[in-house]
């Protein structure tokens, strides 16, 4: 069972960033797919930045992120880079949460002139976090929506790369601390051997 988590840092509603995240997620065809909009967690992310503590709303999101087999990260382009909300989210992710995790990166903008944000801004940050960033990154400009551009082809190629990378890795799955308990008799045996109450 493969799980894919798509993260959209889009701020508007409706959001083309969300739209790209959903298109990519659907194309991966995983067993379980979820899209999270960071705008719904903006306050929680800010709280975390200030208190260094994930609140009850944010904790499950971070846990599901760590447990996902693959990630899709999509940001709008603000002043020729990723958005502040996107970076703030990466800033609160545990340093090793993305280690070795296949990540597909995407960005949206008003003009294709900012496409290289993916290669020069997003890719290095995720490399720093030791994620496995897939070769195809998908940029969608305003002109790509509703027009006959090659956006669909790029989405298919990128999603195919993510699916293949996830498939060739063992499932991440969460380690259940209660899955392999010490038998009760062993615990009793341990107590009965103690002499400090004698």
């Amino acid at each position, binding site marked *: 069972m493969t799980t894919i988590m798509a993260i959209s840092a889009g701020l508007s509603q409706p959001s083309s960033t969300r739209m790209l995240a959903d298109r990519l997620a659907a194309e991966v065809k995983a067993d379980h797919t979820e899209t999270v909009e960071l705008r719904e967690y903006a306050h929680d992310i800010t709280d975390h930045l200030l208190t260094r503590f994930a609140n009850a709303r944010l904790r499950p999101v971070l846990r599901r992120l760590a447990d996902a087999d693959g990630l899709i990260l999509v940001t709008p382009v603000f002043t*020729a880079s990723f958005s502040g909300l996107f970076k703030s989210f990466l800033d609160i992710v545990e340093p090793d949460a993305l280690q070795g995790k296949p990540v597909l990166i995407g960005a949206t903008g008003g*003009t*294709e*002139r*900012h*496409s*290289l*944000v993916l*290669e*020069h*801004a997003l890719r290095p940050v995720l490399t720093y976090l030791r994620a496995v960033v897939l070769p195809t990154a998908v*940029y969608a400009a305003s002109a790509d929506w509703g027009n006959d551009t090659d956006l669909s082809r790029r989405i298919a190629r990128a999603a195919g790369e993510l699916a293949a990378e996830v498939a060739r890795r063992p499932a991440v799955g969460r380690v259940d601390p209660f899955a392999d308990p010490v038998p009760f008799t062993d615990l009793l045996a341990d107590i009965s051997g103690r002499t400090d109450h004698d």
Partner: protein
Amino acid sequence: MTSLIILSGSPSVTSRTGALSDHLATRLRGDGHTASVVRVRDLPAEPLLHADSTHPKIAEVADAIAGAHGVVVASPVYKAAYSGVLKLLLDLLPQFALAGKVVLPVVTGGTPAHVLAIDYALRPVLSSLGADHIVPGWFVLDRHVEPLPGDARLDQRAAEDLYPIVDAFSEVVRGRHALAVA
């Protein structure tokens, strides 16, 4: 009199970057500067590849840059960055070869998707060469440059975008020079 050097970093003989460089030189001369174009492809390959900065041709370029008030660095976009040929020359210059100079980055490419190569790839290199003032650069689409002998014809809209950038560079060079001699 202010002197300008235009470095053209295309390895191609029929280069649009080169043609655009000639065109910019003409415009800058018309604005009262002296301007010369250095095409990296015309420099001897051996010292470029072997990092021989003592070769007379290379030293001549380094001296010309040292004596210039402003430098235009023009490159085609190759693999989402500046050309390797341009970098060969830049690597042979002294560490702070652009200190005290005004620099204008100009890049040509086939798709606007590579516009940010100016700011993410080329600009940091120019900064590391100690450039005092790197003015806003410009990206020109290949198809907007028609090479002519010793010049280029620009698409009208491309020219309307590019000329104000070049003229602003020219103004900054003149302004800094006026301050320096005052």
